[in-house]
């Protein structure tokens, strides 16, 4: 049947080539097509315009403003100073502290968020009891408002909080969790607690879309579970891993919100993040520092995301879909 169908199609194509369409009225037809195309373009443009304008107004334009402030001496006199602001910010001890803390946090928290959520997704993908209940359990933090999360964490990790009460039962001295070198650990735990559920759902969805026949063939070919994981699942999950990594990276920058609510403008120095620096400089009208720091951070983000895309391309290039 297939062969026949192909032949029929081939014959029809040949017939078309042997008997080209008559040229009478071709000009009119072409004009009509052009008009239709132009109309179509206008409609497309009309539909696209709000989005394009939105992007220009709310993304491109603010970026240009930020760039402008980064190369002038202050928001009043607007004297061009080229890279002076960048140099000043780079030399600023608070900026360096913030950059170091943010990088350290992301380097630790993002891989943990990806690996742990993938592990959880694999676990829930296997045949274990109470899968539905576990799934709900891990998604619960997403439903809790941020103010409540902060309240819970304060109850737990305050100097007079529950964790210290429990450790005191074992004779341990009190630890000021949020105002000591332990502070970043607390924030990482908070970050994972809040983000694992969402990442896990993404991975579960991706795991569910891996073709079953390929997995069955691998089993029939006596592939071991780790081989199936490395050579099949990871490859099919590569785009999801990239997405989860980017989302986690972005969320790791947004953890400032929780830290701010827990510890205010000027926290213990180990949890002083880039956004603290930017937020505080904005409050004191120091737009030069704010803008220079924002641009430097954007450049780092672009580089990191570029590397992630290259990695994804490398691992997922031979996978369909």
């Amino acid at each position, binding site marked *: 049947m297939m062969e026949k169908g192909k032949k029929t199609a081939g014959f029809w194509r040949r017939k078309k080539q042997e008997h080209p369409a008559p040229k009478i009225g071709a000009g009119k037809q072409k004009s009509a097509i052009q008009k239709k195309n132009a109309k179509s373009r206008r409609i497309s443009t009309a539909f696209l315009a709000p989005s394009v304008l939105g992007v*220009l*107004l709310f993304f*491109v*334009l*603010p970026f*240009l*403003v930020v760039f*402008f*402030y980064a190369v002038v*001496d*202050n*928001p*009043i*006199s*607007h004297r061009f100073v080229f890279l002076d602001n960048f140099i000043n910010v780079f030399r*600023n*001890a*608070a*900026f360096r*502290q913030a950059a170091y803390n943010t990088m350290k946090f992301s380097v630790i928290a993002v891989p943990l968020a990806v690996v742990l959520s993938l592990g959880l997704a694999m676990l829930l993908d296997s045949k274990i009891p109470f899968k539905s209940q576990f799934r709900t359990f891990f998604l619960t933090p997403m439903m809790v408002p941020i103010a409540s999360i902060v309240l819970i964490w304060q109850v737990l990790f305050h*100097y*007079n909080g529950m964790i210290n009460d429990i450790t005191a039962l074992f004779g341990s001295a009190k630890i*000021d969790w949020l*105002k000591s070198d332990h502070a970043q650990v607390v924030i990482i735990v908070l970050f994972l607690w809040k983000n694992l559920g969402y990442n896990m759902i993404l991975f579960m969805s991706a795991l569910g879309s891996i073709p079953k026949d390929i997995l069955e063939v691998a089993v029939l070919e006596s592939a071991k579970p780790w081989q199936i994981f490395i050579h099949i699942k990871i490859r099919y999950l590569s785009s999801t891993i990239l997405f989860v990594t980017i989302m986690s990276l972005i969320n790791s920058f947004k953890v400032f919100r929780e830290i701010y609510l827990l510890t*205010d*403008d*000027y*926290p*213990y*120095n180990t949890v*002083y993040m880039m956004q603290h*620096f930017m937020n*505080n*400089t904005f*409050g*004191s*009208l*120091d*737009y030069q520092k704010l803008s220079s720091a924002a641009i430097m951070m954007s450049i780092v983000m672009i580089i990191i995301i570029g590397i992630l895309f290259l990695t994804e391309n490398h691992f997922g290039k031979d996978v369909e879909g």
Partner: protein
Amino acid sequence: MKWIHAKKVFGCLAAAALFAVCGCGNGSGEETAGSGNGVDGDYVYVAEYKSLNDYCDSIHALRFGGDKLFFAGMKEDKDVLYSMIVGGDDVKEFPLELEKGMHVNVLGNDAEGNLLLGMIQYEGDPEAGGTVKNVVIRKCSPEGEELETVETGNAFAQMDSMSFYLSSLLQDKEGNYYLGSSKEVYVLRKDGSLYCEIPIGQYLTNLFAMKDGRVVAAYYGNNGWCLEEVNPSQKSLQPLASSIVFDYGTYQGGVDTDLLYTQNAILYTCNLGDEKPTALLNWMDSDIDSNNLSDFTILSDGRIAAVTRDYSAGATELGILTKKDRSEVPEKEILTYASLYVPYFAEKDIVAFNKQSDKYRIVVKEYGDDSMSYADRAALLNADLTGANPPDIIDLEYSTLSLEELVDAGVVEDLSPYLDGDTVIKREDYVENALRAYEWDGKLYGIMSCFGIQTVVGKVSDVGEGSTWTVDDVLALADSKESGVEIFNYADRTNVLHKMCALNEELFIDRENGTCDFSKEEFYKILEFTSRFPQEYEYDPNAPSEIEKIRSGKLLLLSEPITAVSQYQMYEYEFGEPVNFIGYPTFGKSGLTLVPNSTTVAMHASSKNKEGVWEFIRFNLTEKRQENMWTANAGFPILKSALDKVLADAMEDEYYEDEDGNKKLTSKMTWTTGDFTVEVYAATKEQVDRIREMIDTAQPGGTMEEKLYDIIREEAQAYFDGQKKAEDVAALIQNRVQTYLDETR
């Protein structure tokens, strides 16, 4: 083609970027001239002024009645009543034949529009220990014809002249007279006998009748502003029912409405059933200082009349305000004054400046309103400071940013070239300490026109005669007294810690190098000292008064701003023996701080009218202004010659002539604290010299950036709660403050 499109897109973006960088519009604040506060911005009430001082030597009372203004005063030592048709030149004079020692104290109206004169006869010096001999009410027709005189008999006889005076007088439809005194409302029957006395418990501001005849008492109570109907039959006051929120202001009955009142410099009219009041005008737009309003009314032709009394200048003026289209009013160059709140002294200075300037007009831009949080209001102001249409004048007293932040952001202009280049005023003529208060990196960004000295005062027998003391000295003094003795008045840990940290900041923070060190013994001492105070000061209405506490030894020291030499005598009276303004405990340096007590402004670096801004700053620094403003602003003038005059005047005795024409020593002023009144006489040379010494040694500032102090306060709490050692708290403060310092470099 594509390049042309790209150029167009880029052009649009560039334009938009420029628009965004420069800011877009300034709808963030409320300007007094314009649509702010509900006042119709298309119109303005233009005032014509008429001085009332020309008619008599002194004015004791005044009152509008219909389209007439009545005022009573002294002319060539005789009591005279005047009547004028508002807007007319015809002023009628009615000599009052009064008994010896009797003077008109207050004017009022009855329900038919007749004029009431409330007169008091004193025995002795009414300003020092005199008593009331008699109170008489005289009713006159609007034409000045005497209708009846009511004697009150013994109702008020022998009352202390300092606690009994008449602030309001009116008569209801039933013929009862209502007299408002300091903290009481008295109701008299038609024949002058006492019907009832209704104590208020607070100082009465005003008594007035609404259009339906109900009599209302206005005063500031314990829980805010009160408008309460006087009910003589029940001897009580009952709150007026209205959905409108009334606040501190000047209230009276309306002409066609229930109320006509001034609140936050706006004149409103309303009926009690209205959802919101109607804003008629902003007094500042008409160059009238609402703090000086004595009486105001709406005339039958729609014009508004107001009388202002400036006690510091001794001027009484009638202003007649005519509604005009804004386009009809001659234009002046506008200077915008930005602030979150407008202090009363700023309103006074702005009105005075606007009134005398033919070229400039200051328009106040108040950011946000009471419904907004401080942070939201601050954000509005900050956005404007860096926007395309920035204000010309920045109020430094209510600035949301520190001077350092304003300087770093390039917002404020260096005033040194203006001061040094001025042909009228000279830098060396002004008190150096006060000028240094707003200096940064050798540049001058703001100038206060009046100042006070924040200090601690105590008995010489307790604090000694030195000019400084340490925390250990204070603790030793407190320990030498019985337990439970308060060290400072109204003190709690928050304000004591702030003061101590601010005064001693340079011991712990090195701004130049951006470092800090809180692991010093001095800081531990401050923590220990602060822990002696209660966490929060709780006001106890049943507690003994401040003076009782001091005299019984329950309170050792007072933390007060000194704004006049006469305070010496007040504190000596309070403490019952010689006092010393020793200042806050420090670690070697002076514990006195020099604080602004007047309009203190900076010039915006982008102001398009810098000459105009300097004109305003200079206006408040000129000799004439400096010599007259200190009384109103209750502070020391910054001009040395004016300060010398103030200090010299403080040593001059004052006299009055008694009934027999004998010259007798009288008090210069009266200080009232709680229920105690102190008569102030000429200061001694020693007292004046000590004030001079205080001014010379006081340090400007004495405040700490809010963010810095918040860190210290938050961490110190664990020490106060006994949960952490001082060393641990200091380490945490060190960590967080260092981040702050690093960030600001």
